[in-house]
């Protein structure tokens, strides 16, 4: 291709203009992602020469009691946060979809946790959960229940973290649902009302199906996010007590920068990737059954 032709080619200019973004994507995302796949087959501490070990990192992880523990914790966290979080945010969105004075203020209030820093949120919730002086146990004591010490109990720490996460993310999913709800033409509801449909029928026959594409998006994103959970556990419990809140990304981090095992860390990243990939593919495959576009 001659220079002149090149200068007239739309594609050429498109790539020139995309280049800054594309280079960034290549350097900071694509190449590291590909490279770390390679690193998951080596033994490496960043400072000494790499040693090729084949699938040893992967095999080792599945024999590693701690890895299986954190894998289960991650699944547990997902099961605990995603369904409840989605149900609550849908309810909230419906409640906030009314035309009331000052509705925008309510919406903003519920969105506030989303934009708050996790550090601040975690500190406040740590107070709420405090066994002796926390608000939660005080309220429980009013009805005669002696609450556990939430964050230092191996049974309750994870549920406590889940509740905080649900509360923090509620506003974001609520916003998505709200946008979905406002996309449903009111004529459908009016027609249904004339035909004698009650509130529940309207909800189950109009809202749910017409919201299904939003719901699908929210479900997929929530699951992906919850598999990658890190901040809240790291700040609230640092994975403790006794690893009861340690999750995949936390262990990945420990392997990389505490145990100097970059190969293991990369392998964990790829196990996480394949898990999320598999789950998302399955969701895509079965989405035809319930998602209406």
């Amino acid at each position, binding site marked *: 291709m001659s220079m002149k032709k090149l200068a007239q080619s739309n594609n050429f200019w498109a790539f020139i203009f995309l280049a800054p973004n594309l280079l960034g994507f290549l350097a900071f995302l694509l190449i590291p*992602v590909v*490279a770390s796949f390679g*690193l998951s087959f080596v033994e490496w501490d*960043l400072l000494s020469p790499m040693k090729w070990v084949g699938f040893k990192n992967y095999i080792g992880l599945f024999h590693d009691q701690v890895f299986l523990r954190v894998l289960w914790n991650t699944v547990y966290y997902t099961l605990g946060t995603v369904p409840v979080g989605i149900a609550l945010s849908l309810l909230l969105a419906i409640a906030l979809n009314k035309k009331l004075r000052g509705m925008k203020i309510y919406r903003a209030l519920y969105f506030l946790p989303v934009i708050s820093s996790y550090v601040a949120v975690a500190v406040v919730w740590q107070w709420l959960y405090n066994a*002796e002086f926390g608000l939660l146990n005080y309220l429980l004591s009013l009805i005669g229940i002696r609450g556990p010490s939430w964050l230092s109990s191996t049974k309750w720490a994870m549920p406590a973290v889940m509740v905080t996460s649900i509360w923090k993310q509620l506003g974001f999913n609520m916003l998505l649902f709200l946008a979905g709800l406002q996309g449903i033409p009111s004529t459908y509801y009016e027609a249904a009302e004339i035909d004698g449909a009650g509130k529940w029928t309207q909800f189950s026959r109009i809202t749910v199906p017409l919201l299904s594409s939003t719901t699908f998006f929210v479900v997929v994103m929530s699951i992906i996010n919850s598999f990658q959970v890190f901040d809240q556990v790291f700040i609230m419990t640092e994975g403790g007590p006794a690893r009861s809140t340690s999750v995949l990304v936390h262990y990945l981090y420990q392997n*990389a920068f*505490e145990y100097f095992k970059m190969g293991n860390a990369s392998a964990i990243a790829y196990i996480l990737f394949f898990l999320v990939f598999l789950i998302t593919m399955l969701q895509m495959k079965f989405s035809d059954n319930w998602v209406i576009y």
Partner: protein
Amino acid sequence: MKKILVVLITLLLAAASVTAEGKSDAKGSESRSGVTTLKFMGWEASPLETESVKNGLAVFEQQNPGIKVEYTPVAGDYVAKLLTMMAGDSAPDVFFIAADQYRAFQKRNVLLDITDHMNQELNIDEFIPLVQEKMLIGDRVYGISSCNVSPVMFYNKDLFDAAGLSYPPSDPDKAWTWDEFVDVAKKLTITDGNRTTQFGATGFEVAWGWVFPPMVMSNGGSVLSDDYSKVTLNSSQSKEVFNAIRDLRFKHHVAPDVAFVEQSGMSAAQMLQTGRVAMMVDGSWALQQLATMDFPIGIGVLPIFDKPATVGQAHLHAAWAKTKHPEEAWKLIKFLSSEDYQLSNIRAGLWLPNRKELYKEENLSKWINPDVYPEDFGNIVKYFTSYGKLWPGVVANREAYDIINEEKDRFYAGDTSVDEMMANIDKRTANL
């Protein structure tokens, strides 16, 4: 997601630089005027420390007109940053290194061997034994200790006066036995209905595991074998200690659970100040904050099972093995271990001295600042010089120590018995 990305990018950059290794030019940082610029990296543990680093460096530059120091404090992930910079062949000349990372880095040949300088200009025997043990790897030295910090027992004198009890001893040779301590803790525990408004004692169950080792050692047990290679916690002596610590909560009800302090939003000092707890085991550094508060504070030694014992640690200053300026780097490291640098932090109650010299009777007045330290602090010094041992977390395999902490937390939570805990530790650390 962000964390994963950081890890991935780190790995990539490191991989790229490994292949580029050897190609990097030997351009030093000598400038026109013959002034050498040293890159120095540390973390910000507290505003006071940052301040003292800056003041200290000003003094150093004055004493060494040929050396300029460029200081970078790192907020956030220090180890990851240092590791990446080393892998990328662009590490700082001199840096802080946490005691429990020192051996892991040295094992990978990235720390400058300063043994010869050490032998010529300083003497390892100048340091108190636990600090010597911290610095020595085999018979070589790769970093000099910044200071020492140890767990001690802080208490609020008002609460003891109100109960008409005598204060915990500060002289380690007169330390309370565990039973005496439990007795006092019971008397200092106040309940209102089924709520405890004042706890007798806390601080033994710290998650990162630096208070159980002195108690185990006090009872004649050990955490690691002498060559640090094996976990030797499984003994009747340690079992007795762990049961005793858990009994404070389960049986005697004199202690709150560990999260009580760590997650109350209050510092140890505030807990004592507000009378939530009467006695609290915490790091000696807590004195710095306590001294700024308005209540009578006391410092005693930990109770003993058989003999007095405490542990110590604290970060070191080390140089990069590939630094272009090893002589200047040594000068800075040496300066950072001098009184010129340490004394302000020590006098503020944040650090304890790491040299025998300052612990001598005639030198105590140099640092036991009456505005900060309790009046009987002179009695406690032999706790650090004679009874102090290196905190095993410094020399243990990191994964093994994490396992110990995990199993100990499970035991403290009441999920396992002490025998199960020890069996699990033995089984899980056997192959590391």
